């Protein structure tokens, strides 16, 4: 890949004709009305930098940092600009050629020293949840005048009060519970593995009920998505290579992920590891769970739940992977459910990987707007196909609002079937 010290390839930059069709789609432009906070503005900065007309200074970096990476602009672009590659390579250039102020460096270091590693993340999350129950949130903001303490406060605010411990055991093959249609592997990731064990369990339950043997390999690590989206390309490549090496020899028909943010990176390892055949082969088999279930067709017996579901389309599902209708179709397959989309449903919730940890002000503005659009629907539960979005929305919503990954609702509907069957 390009990027590195030189920045995005000029050819890629020049596919942008500066028409501005991306402006209404961009959450940061909508908030700031500042050209430099828009996709075409950011691409123009890359162009001007490549011309040598502007420096790689803290202003430039600030405008690139502030991009959520939600890719709403990609959907809006008539010229087919590959913005994802542009922003990733611009960030990679920044990380390799720009010396950030000490405080920013420390925050990023702390994040990437912990998040990709479940072994380090798990005890911290448990500690954080405990601290939260004890009321630490009221104390934390007073500690935080920027830097690591502020990041800690943001992280704390995002944590659920209880972490789920019901994740499926690793290193096991869960046999299909109805006529067998194939074998899939479940990608467990990093943050998701620690905070969202119940989503993984639900995925296993639903896939089994749909006739798939589900392999949950032990020793998986982070896929590299968080690092890639933040310009930490060498770290991302290292994590990706390790994951591919770990899973390369497993015999599965597809690798399933329940996280939209991970999925979009898992599917494009060829960008992270160009020319590595095993990486491309692995990426070719990755499926988002909504995509996979919808492609295969639901056969299991889903029983009524009778709830109002607000569905939030995660940017990395809808924009980065083009998975728009599948989650809605799956949710609507649950009898008795009303599935609703909030107003401005295409706008990012502000989660965006580690964005809500490093750009808290923008994240808060978007999170608050998203939560109130969802609240207007008066749902019983908000559903989203990305763990980060669920944490972000919950943070700004009424504590009484339940949140769940769509596959958890499918699992709940299946369980209702078993219960009524036994009754």
């Amino acid at each position, binding site marked *: 890949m390009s990027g590195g010290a030189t920045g995005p390839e000029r050819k890629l930059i020049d596919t942008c*004709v500066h028409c501005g*069709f991306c402006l209404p789609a961009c959450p940061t432009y909508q908030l700031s009305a500042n050209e430099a906070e828009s996709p075409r503005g950011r691409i*123009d900065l890359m162009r001007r930098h490549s011309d040598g007309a502007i420096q790689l200074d803290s202003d430039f970096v600030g405008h690139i940092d502030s991009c959520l990476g939600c890719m709403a602009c990609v959907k809006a672009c008539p010229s087919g600009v590959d913005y994802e590659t542009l922003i990733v390579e611009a960030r990679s250039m920044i990380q390799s050629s720009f010396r950030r102020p000490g405080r920013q460096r420390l925050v990023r270091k702390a994040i990437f020293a912990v998040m990709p590693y479940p072994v380090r993340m798990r005890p911290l999350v448990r500690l954080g949840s405990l601290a939260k129950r004890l009321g630490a949130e009221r104390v934390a903001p007073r500690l935080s005048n920027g830097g690591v303490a502020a990041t800690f406060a943001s992280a704390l605010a995002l944590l659920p009060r209880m972490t789920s411990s019901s994740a499926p055991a690793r290193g096991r093959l869960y046999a299909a519970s109805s006529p067998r249609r194939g074998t899939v592997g479940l990608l467990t990731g990093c943050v998701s593995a620690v905070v969202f064990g119940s989503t993984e369990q639900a995925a296993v339950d639903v896939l089994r009920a749909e006739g798939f043997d589900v392999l949950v390999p032990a020793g998986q690590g982070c896929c590299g998505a968080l690092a890639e989206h933040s310009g930490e390309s060498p770290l991302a490549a290292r994590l990706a290579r390790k994951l591919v090496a770990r899973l390369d020899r497993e015999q599965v028909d597809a690798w399933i992920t329940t996280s939209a943010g991970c999925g979009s990176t898992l599917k494009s390892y060829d960008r992270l590891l160009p020319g590595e055949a095993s990486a491309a082969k692995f990426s070719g088999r990755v499926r988002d769970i909504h995509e996979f279930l919808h492609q295969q067709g639901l056969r299991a017996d889903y029983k009524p739940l009778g709830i109002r579901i607000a569905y939030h389309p995660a940017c990395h599902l809808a924009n980065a992977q083009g998975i728009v209708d599948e989650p809605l179709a799956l949710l609507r397959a649950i009898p008795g459910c009303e599935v609703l989309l909030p107003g401005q449903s295409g706008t990012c919730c502000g989660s965006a990987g580690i964005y809500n940890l490093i750009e808290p002000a923008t994240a808060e503005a978007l999170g608050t707007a998203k939560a109130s659009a969802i609240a207007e629907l008066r749902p019983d539960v908000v559903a989203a196909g990305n763990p980060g979005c669920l944490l972000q929305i919950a943070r700004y919503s009424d504590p009484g609002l339940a949140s769940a990954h769509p596959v958890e609702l499918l699992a709940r509907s299946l369980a209702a079937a078993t219960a009524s069957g036994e009754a």
Partner: protein
Amino acid sequence: MPIASRSGRMEEFKRRVVELVPQGECIIGDAAALSSYGSDGLIRFRQTPEVVVLAKSAGEIHSAVKLCAELGIPFVGRGSGTGLSGGAVPPPDGVVIAASAMKGILEIDPVDRIAVVEPGVANLVVSERTAPFGLYYAPDPSSQSVCSIGGNVAENSGGAHCLKYGFTTNHVLAIEVVLPDGSVEVLGGESPFEPGLDLRSSFLGSEGTLGIVTKVWLRLLSRPEAVRTLVADFDSAESAGAAVSAIIAAGIVPAAIEMMDALAIEACEKAVGAGYSLDAAAALIVEVDGPREEVDALYEEVKSACVSCGTTKIREAADQAERSRIWLGRKAAFAAAGRLAPAYIVQDGVVPRTALASILGRIAELADDAGLRVANVFHAGDGNLHPLVLYNPDSPEESEAAERVASEIVELCVEIGGSITGEHGVGLEKACSMAAMFDSGDLEAMQRLRIAFDAQGIANPGKVFPTPRLCGDTPGRYRAHPLELSGEAIRF
């Protein structure tokens, strides 16, 4: 006024403007952000401003312009920056006063059918917000999802449906403006007839040379009872052009008649997948709207006109979704041309409708001679051409050839009785071509009007009017000025 140096006055402006814009934002030291205001939708022209004022209210625009007037600092107003003639490119040593943060719809009066809006609101948003009342705002530039009402006022923007409904000027009842001397005026009024000289009309389409609009009273229309849309394919541009003439000659005024040639069809299809036929040499999109019975009758007449002119296929939009898809393809055309070539120049000439078919032939000849490809999309109903001259900017020869072909096309339009611009404005791009259309008497008359508004010449200077430094005031294609060649002046 004490005569301070230019840079001294700019320093004073920077110092004082910050306090005048408490709600909005002033971009002053951020070189990256300033640089991103160097161009509008036409990236060939660029000039980095000294300051960008992101105003939050009419009062802030007012204060900023007043300070410009006091210090004699040139300024340009800016909406969404989607203009296609370089009209919002900052003047040298100038400031940008942007209304992009002023997106409020202040009032909707569904009975009198008036919407009062701030200048930064996007064109399409007005229609979306008034839809619950069965109303909409008719002018629909292809960039309507982005372009601002303020920008529409400055450019007197058109769009596909202006054939039947008219341009922006037909839909703006009144405007509140800040004039270049810093005074605030309301031009026009809520009633359709205002006594006295019509200054509102002078301002509409003045491309920022008479001041900045801060509030707009828009006329809304009832949504038509029925709309029907078809795409008719033809095996030659000539027969498509003949069909346009046949439709108009039959006394029908469709809501829109758009034409695309094979290359444009290919680009739009790649971008949007609107279902256009890739094997057609040309296609017409024809839309009729109005009361249902009238629409049904006119629609049949349109179809038979297409058939009599040899259409090879007629695709009828079955529902709103299909109609939207057809229009989405057409409206993405300019940017979609980015898929055919790394760069292109959009032209905006107008020709008599009867000359449509012949000018397409002439354009093709010009393109062939230069070894370039030209895609054509245009508002055929009113003879407004948008040839897209495709080229590779990495090749200096091709870039130069493309500029040459583009200006030859415009000159051709004037030669056969048309005009240099149909809706994109003159801006920076076509200032030199003004002399091809107007003699010095005409231009002087326009200048006198302009000076009546702007004695200091600080409102978007260098636009619309040819200047000796850039153009030598001679009609014809761009020729390098001797000062440019000697390196003493540069062309922006």
